[in-house]
């Protein structure tokens, strides 16, 4: 079972530090959030900038494209969440409800609702359809900054620096908080939705069973250095990916918990790899590194291309 990862591309985004890189829903485009208050829409395969979205008052921290790729939602240190029209590049809506910098934002499956997490310890749900300015619901359970928010079809997953992963089950109406011992930098669902991949600040990535809260696996080796590293599973739920302070993309085997690969670009970098994004339909990874975005893919898929 030898999987080779091939370094495909390095794109210099030219928008300062890239805070986040996100594939679109179909994986054909990606969005990068720059520290120069701009969002850029890319065709990462051709390294072409399609559009630049400017309107944030401060660094853009996260973005997410809607399911029909007609809208992009972004959030930034200016405490606002902005909904963009992709085609025109104009902000459709601007939600100002957070009291602190907004660090993470996600659409729900239908892209009708926007969930954002902020350093004001709150997760807010915004209705993208109505013109209401206020948040539809505010989840104020966290005791510290929200580091990541993920949305499944019926759950909202929020990770906080207070060391707890909170799963809000809308279907049951239940909040489930799992204590992880240390600040959590990222928590995400696996593709099958049964487990949670939780990155802790103590340089451990934990695989948590969603239903029982038990730990299924531990992944170590990377260095955090108090960075808000992101982690994810690959397309087939067989690997765990994580950024690292050493500027590499670490990949573990989910079952054996062994390090499979440390991916890096051609040039050695002094920057850390913080944000990662996995192609929704194939094993193609994007990682932000400084002002660049790096792209890897498994060999088999690149052959197909």
């Amino acid at each position: 079972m030898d999987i080779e990862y091939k370094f495909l591309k390095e794109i210099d985004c030219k928008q300062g530090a890239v805070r986040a890189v996100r594939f679109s829903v179909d994986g054909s485009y990606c969005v990068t959030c720059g520290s120069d208050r701009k969002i850029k829409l890319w065709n990462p395969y051709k390294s072409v900038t399609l559009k630049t979205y400017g309107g944030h008052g401060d660094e853009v921290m996260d973005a997410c494209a809607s399911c029909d790729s007609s809208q992009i939602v972004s959030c930034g240190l200016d405490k606002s969440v902005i909904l963009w029209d992709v085609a025109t590049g104009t902000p459709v809506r601007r939600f100002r409800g957070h009291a602190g910098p907004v660090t993470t934002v996600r659409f729900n499956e239908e892209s009708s609702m926007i969930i954002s997490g902020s350093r004001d310890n709150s997760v807010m749900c915004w209705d993208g359809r109505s013109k209401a300015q206020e948040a539809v619901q505010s989840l104020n359970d966290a005791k510290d900054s929200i580091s990541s928010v993920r949305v499944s079809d019926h759950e909202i997953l929020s990770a906080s620096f207070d060391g707890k992963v909170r799963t809000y089950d809308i279907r049951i109406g239940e909040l489930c908080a799992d204590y992880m011992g240390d600040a959590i930098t990222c928590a995400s669902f696996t593709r099958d939705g049964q487990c949670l991949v939780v990155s802790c600040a103590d340089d451990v990535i934990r695989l948590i069973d969603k239903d029982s809260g038990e730990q299924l696996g531990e992944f170590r080796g990377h260095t955090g250095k108090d960075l808000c590293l992101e982690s994810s599973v690959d397309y087939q739920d067989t690997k765990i990916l994580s950024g690292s302070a050493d500027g590499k993309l670490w990949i573990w085997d989910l079952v054996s918990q062994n390090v499979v690969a440390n991916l890096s670009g051609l040039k050695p970098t002094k920057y850390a790899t913080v944000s990662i994004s996995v192609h929704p339909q194939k094993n193609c990874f994007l990682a932000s590194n400084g002002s660049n975005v790096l792209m890897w893919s498994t060999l088999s898929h690149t052959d197909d291309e």
Partner: protein
Amino acid sequence: MSDSEEENYVTFGVPLDPLDEENIPRKKPVTIEDQYAYDAQGRRRFHGAFTGGFSAGYFNTVGTRDGWRPQQFKSSRCNKADNIIQRPEDFMDEEDTSLFGIAPKGIQATSDYADHGQKGKKRERISQDNNGPIPGAPVLKELLKPVKETVGIVLLKKMGWKPGQGVGSRLTKREKQKIKQRHERLKLTQGNPEITGSNSEDSDDNSTNITFAPDDYEPFRCKPKDNYFGIGYSGLDRRKILSGHINLFDTPAFCVQDKNKKLSIHGQAFGVGAFEADDEDIYEKEDMSRYDFALGPERKTKTRWSQDAPTSSQIDCLDGFVRAKERLVSKKIFKPPELPKDFVPVHAVRKSRFYPPIAIPVENGKRREPLNAVDRARILEDPDERLRKPSSSTSVASNIISNTLNLHGKQQTEERKKLQNQQTTTGNSWLDKLNAQNFVKGGVDGLKQNDTGSLKTLEDFKESASTSVQSSTETSTEYDPSNKSEKSAKLFSSNPDKQRRFEQYLIFLKNNERNKLETIQPLSMTEWEREQECTEFEQAAKLEQSNNYMVDKFIHSTDPTMDKTDPQKDAKEAVRLKMFGKLTRERSEWKPASIVCKRFNIPEPKIGCAPIVTDRKSVKFSIFDSLDWCNSSKFTKATEQQRIQMEEVPQLSKKTEESTNEVISDTDNISSIDYQSSEPVSEKFRIFEASYEKVFGKGIQNILSTTSENAKQDVSDNLKDQTIQEIEKKQEIGTAVKDQSNEKKDLFKAIFLSSSEDSEDSEPEEKVDNETVKSILIGKDPKEINSQRNTSPPRGIFAKLDLDSLVTHSKCVNDESTASKSVSETSLPTIDEMQDNLMDCNNVIEDAETAMPPNMYGPILPQRLLKQESTATTEVDSVNQSLKPVFRSIVVSKTAEDSTLGGKWVERDKMKKLKKEKKKHKHKEHKNSKHKKKSKKEKRSKH
């Protein structure tokens, strides 16, 4: 005759046939209904009023049955439409063009031909055909002019008259001139500006026989004023609109000549647009001729109505007025005053009224220097201490003060050491014990304060008492006050001098020398500032106190919980052991908003459920809370400290002994001492004693009050004795060594003590118990006794001192005192009897009184001692209504005790129990607190 008559008359014409009356046809008059109007075609119709009106109805339309039809325009390649010129007649009925229609079309002589002269000219229609090659009026028309002379003129001409001449006999030149002059004079007087052109005068006037025709008569016309306008004002000209014939169809054509081609534009131009604000003149027709087509100076077109304008402008004055020949003397205009040479115009504009006025620099010419920090502060009105006082002076002053303070502290420590030594020597003396149990340092401090001789208000005293307690605690742990000052929070860290002063203030506070603050305040400070700072420090001190207190509290409250059940800790432990799962998981209710469910396409969970009640209490700590605690903590601290400082108390008690006189002199002090004198007596005993006193307390009080009969020095003795008694009694209680009274006590105990703990809850029950007990003991009707009973057990020694009675009833007490000496131990029942007898008359008042006294705790004087001492009789008491103040003063001690209990830190469930127990008493306490104040007031006023 007839013949002759007939012959005489000549007849002309043929006579009519005589009327055949029978054959006259009977003509019915035609009724109005039968009268119909017919038109030319014989169509029956009503044709307006007489003939001029329009006929209505569908007949009266243009041509067809459907009326007027818009013209069709059809044009094709082969069949080109020719230019059809529409005429007004196309839109008119036949009748309209008939003789009586609106546009008659018959041939008739126009006015030009019908009339002659000016009148005809007016009506002349200018039917110029400008379309011809020659512009202007047609030449032929000019040439062939119709004859317009009237018959009169024709006749005159025939008689030799020529136009331009006057009518009349011929005149010589002189005559003619005379007439002319007369005319002119007349004109001038009338102010008629019209100047007639005079005939050129012939120079040769010698020929007198030459006669001339007279001048044409010029009618002199006065313009009558036929309007109400002001003089010289001519209103809007209405004639323009009303008199002119509005030609609907013929618009004046606009002609432009360009390159030998003449363009003529017909039709209305533009018109009124929908967006134009107003149509200024709806009757005015807009046509192209009104537009400028070339750039250049505007030409004035002469209109019909603008004829008058030039004449009026020439004259330059109103109608009927003459220009003045002499100019009016113009007003003299004075020059404005000249400014002095050195005047510099400066105008500083304030940006807003909230800005301070900008100070104009006095120095001329000099540029304003940039502001330094001090200036800015001044502008901003920053209350910076540094500005107010020179730093050097304060530092010196503060140094001195701190030195003295240190000295003071040293003195204190020395004193204390001495006292401690003394204590060790006299450790076993009863006085120590007495003081240990009854006094805290607060009282002593109060005394000290008294030594200084400063007059203190009650509040001040209270505060000092509390603070002194605190200070005593602090000094007990650390003798050097400077240590404390270092420790104190830097509340005024921004202002080091102030901070220093605050620290010193804290020290003063500890030593109860608050007045000394003034001495360390810099001289530069105003009185107001001093006061301000004083209050500021006071508050800060309180705050600090509370902070210290809160720190303690937090430690206490958090520590045990952390140890016991901290889920977080558990979870942490679990994480450490990698036992994720149940331990690290917390499940809780959460209700998603309905719109969230909607957007997620999920049915809303738990619809109809009550909103989740989170038992998480939002605990918010605010400064005010802490301040509140600070107040309540006074008492707790007092009691706690008391125990801690047991060793210290003896020495203090000595002081009290020495200064008993002073104690008496200051009642507030007494009460405060009492206030602090809470003893760690077991609950059981306290209750027992309370109930005991309820039964027997009266007698004791009687005795007490009798003690007050004596002069003040006596009282001090009593005081001592009583304290001794109390201490002894307490000791005795433990050993249960009793005298005569003990028998009763024992009995009472036997009956009552078993249930005494519970009975605290229910007052009425207790009452009944007491009554029964008493009745058993005394053999009296319980009701009678009840009326007089003191339900509030006296507590504390000084509380029983009634100073009021000292003043008011000393005389009668003296009378009774001799008799009272003979009172034996067995006299109690009799005393009660006597009381009852006396009280019967005062029953009503007494009831009211007895209702309010609260329960009292604390030791009472043993009967035996009382009797030994007894200089009092029961009668004295019963006579004395002044007993009530005694009760009141007792109350003071009780509340103090209660509050100490309330302020104690007890476990929660315990507290609840306590609360239950106290429920009963609380309302009484409130009442009593009122009375307490009252009594104090009374005392003060009496002093």
